[in-house]
């Protein structure tokens, strides 16, 4: 593995996606639990979710913008091919993003009457469920290696379905979509156990976290099975590659730790373990498709922008990080370290 500027930036894009999944992913998960709020503490659950999200969700959301911007700056051809092939799921995902964010503020700042609150709550919750599935489907489409730029050149035959639907609408893709939804819900439930006040409310989310962990387990195995047929690259890397065994071990350890910690009510530990588990799964995919940005043909080195752009971007990222990380630390210290 040669470490070029392009590889470093590809790594930074993955780190940004990782941050998006751990932070904004949990915000979507919050919407899922808003949808499934039930029992005697239904309103308390919704209030906790809303209280947890309000100050941070917009900052969390920016990680996705950073991913997109870095992708088109440093891997423009991969970005344009990805945007052509996944036009439909990306557009639907954008609808979800717009409706979720808007509905959330409309609920927070709109009229207090119940009907209005419920209506926006519904839109927020449903958009929070649909958007992660679409995001997962886009990732799934990349991982299958179905997106070949030659499909979109002028001379290529192929029907509309062949070019614009078949690459992403696969059982594997749907599986990854559901996996993303389960992971986001799992993260949210675990985080909320830490933020909840009172044992009863904590137990509500503890139970939800454990159910979500079960869902993650089942769906993850389903996705691995589907990869056997539909995503040869993932199959090869995760079953036979040199990283396969260590990957399964660390992911398994993190998953089991999260569950034990939840059962033992060690919620802070559970939060760390859950975040680690999701991170390992994400990087499992990244390692599996290395050195491709967009398999089967677009590699990191072949689609990278000229060296000068990459170097300047790295400088920009360095300066940006000096502003970003202290600010983020300040934000999270104010709103997330209130209960010790």
């Amino acid at each position: 593995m040669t470490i070029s500027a392009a590889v470093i930036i590809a790594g930074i894009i993955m780190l940004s996606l990782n941050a998006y999944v751990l932070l904004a992913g949990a915000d979507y998960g919050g919407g899922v639990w808003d949808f499934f709020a039930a029992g005697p503490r239904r309103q308390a659950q919704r209030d906790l979710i809303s209280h947890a999200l309000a100050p941070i969700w917009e900052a969390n959301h920016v990680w996705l913008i950073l991913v997109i911007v870095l992708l088109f700056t440093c891997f423009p051809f991969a970005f344009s091919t990805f945007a052509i092939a996944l036009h439909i799921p990306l557009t639907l995902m954008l609808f979800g993003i717009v409706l979720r964010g808007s509905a959330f503020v409309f609920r927070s700042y709109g009229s207090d009457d119940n009907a209005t609150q419920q209506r926006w709550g519904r839109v927020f919750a449903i958009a929070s469920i649909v958007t992660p599935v679409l995001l997962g489907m886009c990732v799934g489409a990349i991982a299958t290696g179905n997106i070949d730029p030659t499909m979109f050149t002028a001379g290529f035959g192929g029907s509309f379905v062949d070019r614009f639907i078949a690459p992403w609408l696969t059982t594997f893709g749907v599986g990854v979509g559901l996996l993303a939804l389960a992971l986001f819900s799992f993260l949210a439930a675990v985080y909320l156990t830490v933020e909840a006040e009172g044992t009863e409310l904590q137990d509500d989310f503890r139970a939800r976290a454990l159910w979500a962990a079960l869902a993650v387990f089942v769906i993850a195995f389903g996705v691995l099975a589907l990869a056997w047929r539909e995503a040869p690259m993932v199959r090869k890397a995760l079953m036979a590659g040199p990283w396969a065994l260590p990957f399964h071990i660390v992911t398994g350890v993190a998953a089991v730790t999260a569950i034990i910690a939840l059962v033992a009510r060690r919620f802070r530990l559970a939060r760390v373990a859950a975040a680690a588990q999701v991170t390992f799964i994400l990087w499992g995919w990244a390692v599996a498709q290395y050195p491709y940005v967009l398999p089967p043909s677009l590699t990191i080195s072949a689609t990278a922008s000229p060296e000068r752009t990459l170097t300047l971007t790295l400088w920009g990222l360095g300066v940006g990080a000096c502003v970003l990380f202290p600010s983020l630390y300040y934000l999270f210290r104010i709103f997330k370290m209130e209960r010790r």
Partner: protein
Amino acid sequence: MLLRLFGMTDLFAARSQMGVSLAFHILFAVVGIGMPALMVIAEHRWRRTGDAVYLELAKRWSYGTAILFAVGAVSGTVISFELGLLWPEFMHQAGAIIGMPFSLEGFAFFTEAIFLGIYLYGWDRISARAHVWAGAIVAFSGALSGIFVVIANAWMNTPRGFTLVDGRFTDIDPIKAMMTPAAFPQTLHMTLAAYAATGFAVAGIHAFMLLRDPRNAFHRHALTIALLLGAPAALVQPLSGDISARYVAKQQPVKLAAMEAHFETMKGAPLQIGGIPSVSERRTKYAITIPHGLSLLAFHEWNAEVKGLDAFPEDVWPNVTVVHFAFDVMVGLGTFLALLSAVILILRWRKRDIVSHRWLLAAVAIAGPMGFICIEAGWTVTEVGRQPWVIYGILKTADAVTPMPGLIVPFISFTLLYIFLGVIVAYLLYQQVLKSPRGDDTVPERVKAA
């Protein structure tokens, strides 16, 4: 079938979708630049004077900002994807050159979102000083992110920082690509526009309320602060417009010709205001004509030669009617705002009470939406005026569009979504205004604070 029904090509659908997305997003982006400044001024005054009306004002403005910022953030996300979804060939070719300002904008936007969260939800959690500073950082980073995005747009108007070999960009220099001839005029014009538009929109709302309730301290304070931001910006905007016009005359003469509906190249060219451009007859009918006006404005010379549309092949003309009309709307309303600002600032300088002049309050109320109309019209001039190019003189918009068919579907879907959101936002803001304190309530609060 659907395509034939609307007679719309995919290219036109893509352009329309981009246009609708930008027109919608710009309203919220501008508010994200102007509103934080207003909030911070109000809060600062509260901290200094102890007048609780200022606190009430800062809080109410921050509710509005929260709603508008959220819609701006998500609609901005849509645009960052749409660059690829609609114009993949443009991003393929230009990504490496203009990615830099977008990356920097990403960090500015991060800062804005982080400190807005702190500002909105941190009233009781951080010190007074830290809170005012958080607001000031939101205001600053909001302006900065706007500047970075406009720098990227300026490159599309005056592309620099590369060598073109066989239609491909080589020898790329992203720094030079940020310092293009259009960058300074455009960012200056846009930043001033953001302050002028937000200031006058807010002033317009409070002036309207004051017409009915002239002694209301809440609305009086609000009007003063909003005009403090809006009036100076609107007053100097014509100067920045002059800088912009001269750069366009030099760098994009065909755009200038379309703006002015100026068909025939000539020395001592007249300025044409209004009128109906007729492309087939190569002339503009029914316009008010000011001899030598265009030469003077574009080059500051009585007899300067101004290239007309006839100096360019017709297939590189933008839509003359749209560009000329949009330009006249912008200049017309902008002039009104500048004159109104001059009156307001003179009265203020002579320590007269603005609120006691009902005609002036009415004028400010009418001026409320004008800044935003100017911004929409101005961007129409910039964007439609650059057509048929996406990168001026280098890449045609038609060659940049996605091969994805049926683009009318996302165009109509996004349009309906944005109309729906626009109605809801307007309704929520209207409710916020209705909830503002009545005249009688504002006096006791003042006493309470003292």
